[in-house]
């Protein structure tokens, strides 16, 4: 019975349906195996301590609003229900339910007297979400129900994991060597299965740029970044920015993935800088000022760039470089609109 439930839930988790509908199906299926009067399934926000509801049943808007607020997040933390542990009922606590504000102000007045709550973690121990089952009766949930929910807990996380589609999207990056998940306000968290990299650390210029691309509404962006300093003593690395398609997880912006650079067309680090400013729409004068060199030097660089890119005009050179992913953004570029 529990095995069949696991399989059903795993099928929902693996389905192609969008996250909110997977979450709804998860609750519906769960209800057939673990009875409840009302339920609340929410995503954990890894950068703040709040929860975003993704599915619920039989809860009125007032209760839903309260549960998504800071008080509930606080109570979840206080009771340790945000840790990996078997489902917890309010009757397990050494003090009365009314001592918790969520119960006193919201759940008890709504006629809810019992619950089973459990934090949902992925295989790597990442906190994905939170599930609360509510009961109108005062009878504590039976051991059978608790055990059944406990056994099903680990199949629940994949179904609502907002990183799943990000991981799928990042498969377009071939030979990825490192990656990170980007959240609101530039916060970063590890991308499951990927190494990190100093270039992707919180507050790094690459992360700031990735943030600005996603803010501009770009779904996909790719550029080069010099390793070891502006003059690329350690070569360049490809940076790919992918915006998250998951609107459910509001704080999740996207992912930034590093991969090796295959062909630089023989362009030198300096030429790549000039090319980057050209792509930004800088004139020769502006490029000269930005790089603190004479305009004639810029013209000479451009001549080499046109030859190396086999382009007859600045525009074609810029387009070709952008297409081939040879754009090196300069943080100080004055011409980027």
């Amino acid at each position, binding site marked *: 019975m529990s*095995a*069949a439930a*696991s399989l059903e*839930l*795993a099928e929902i*988790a*693996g*389905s*192609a349906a969008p996250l909110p509908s997977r979450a709804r199906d998860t609750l519906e299926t769960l209800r057939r195996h673990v009875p409840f009067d009302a339920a609340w399934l929410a995503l954990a926000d890894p950068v703040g301590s709040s929860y975003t509801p993704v599915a619920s049943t039989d809860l009125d808007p007032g209760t839903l609003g309260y549960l998504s607020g800071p008080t509930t997040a606080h109570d979840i933390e206080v009771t340790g229900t945000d840790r990996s542990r078997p489902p917890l009922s309010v009757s397990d606590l050494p003090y009365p339910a009314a001592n918790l504000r969520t119960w006193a102000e919201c759940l008890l007045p709504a006629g809810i007297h019992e619950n089973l709550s459990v934090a949902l973690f*992925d*295989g*790597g121990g990442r906190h994905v979400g939170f599930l609360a089952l509510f009961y109108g009766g005062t009878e504590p949930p039976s051991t059978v129900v608790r055990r059944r929910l406990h*056994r*099903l807990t680990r*199949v629940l*996380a*994949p*179904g609502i*994991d907002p*990183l*799943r*589609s*990000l991981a*799928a*999207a*990042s*498969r*377009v990056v*071939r030979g*990825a060597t490192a*990656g990170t998940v980007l959240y609101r306000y530039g916060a970063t968290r590890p*991308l*499951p*299965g*990927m190494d990190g990299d100093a270039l992707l650390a919180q507050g790094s210029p690459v992360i700031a740029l990735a943030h600005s691309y996603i803010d501009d509404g*770009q*779904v*996909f*962006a*790719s550029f080069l970044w010099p390793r070891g300093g502006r003059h690329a003593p350690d070569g360049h690395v490809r940076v*790919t920015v*992918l915006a998250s*398609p998951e609107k459910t997880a509001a704080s999740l912006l996207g992912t930034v*993935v590093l991969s090796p650079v295959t062909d630089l067309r023989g362009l030198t680090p300096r030429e790549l800088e000039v090319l980057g400013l*050209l*792509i930004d*729409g800088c*004139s020769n004068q502006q490029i000269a000022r930005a790089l603190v060199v004479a305009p004639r030097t810029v013209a000479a660089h451009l001549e080499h760039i046109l030859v190396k890119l086999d382009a*007859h*005009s*600045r*525009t*074609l050179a*810029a*387009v070709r470089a*952008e*297409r081939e*992913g040879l754009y090196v953004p300069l943080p100080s570029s004055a*011409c980027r*609109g």
Partner: protein
Amino acid sequence: MVAETLGRCCDGHRRGRCPPARPAEPSCAKLTDAGARVTLTAVLAVQRGGGRAVRMDGEDPGRRPDPVAVSRDAVAERAAEVLHRLGRIVPFDAGWVALRDPERQRHVALATTGPAGPLRDYFGRPEADDEVDSLGLNRRCPPMLASDIPIPLREVRAWSDHLLPAGFRGGVAAGLFTSSGRHVGFLSLLTADAPQPREADRRVVATVTTVIADELDRTGDIAETARAVEKADAGVVLTRGGDVLPLPGLPDHRLLAPGSPILAVAADELAVGGACIGFLAPAPGAAGDRLVRVTALDVARPELDHLAAAVLLGPPGDSHGLTVLDLRILGLLVEGVIDIPALGRRLRVGTDAVARSLGRSLAALQTSDLTATAVRALRGGLRIPPGVPPA
């Protein structure tokens, strides 16, 4: 000579018939009932989306590939897992799971277990695919036991040149066909012990080949990636040879029919570079300026198979008030046509109209020169490439 014999013996297979199935033994009947199928499916399910608890054998599911993790080689990991799980329900000494590239007519190993070197050697030979085909294994047939082969094993090149010398005496092989009927690969399990695998093993393998094929079908991964990158209304998978395959979960579209100009533009642009390109195209049958957005993702794994790109159609998004003419001019600009008279000639409009259009584009894209305008148009997919015909 060997080929001739094969040709004769397997004539029936060539015409698309499967080898005659043996009557089922009562003791194995339970394998085909629904309950047993679920169990076997569960044993093999290495589901993309998750569901760690599908393992019903009580073993620690920890070694399963994490579905959320960015896998460096997801399909090969799943293939290895398939062999690992098969090993618990079917006896074999060497196992081989391969993808088949129908355009290059070759098999590429995804995973092997045991001494699979002879299989690797065999499939590295150009005549392997022909022989596999003549044995009927490139068609949707029940798995074939080595003992089913209607001619002596020493007359089959795979066995005479590779498997018998390596000490293999028995085996079961099957073409892997997805639930949608597409041929994606090949499974071979070999034993040193002739009586094995048996009829019962064949039935076990028969029960799971479709599950295995669905696991290894890369179009599933491609669809998931495509869904994550773009909200599309239609889409297809484009092969290296220009063939079009369904993209699971999305309908096809006549703009994406084999040989369509849009597919040609998408393939050409991906060939120039970049993992993801976008542009606009006039919507078919629409009067006026209705557009569709075309997004193409490079999904080629040339070392594995012939699947090259996902091409998607979706809503056009915000075109910043640009007209079809503006978008066509931007399309030419991106191709390096920057001379106003040349732009006018290409689109059969006057130079004044070109100049006014460029003015609109610079304003819409908030740029001050043609180079930045072309780059913006390319990045935002705000252009109709010259290869895209009018609706």
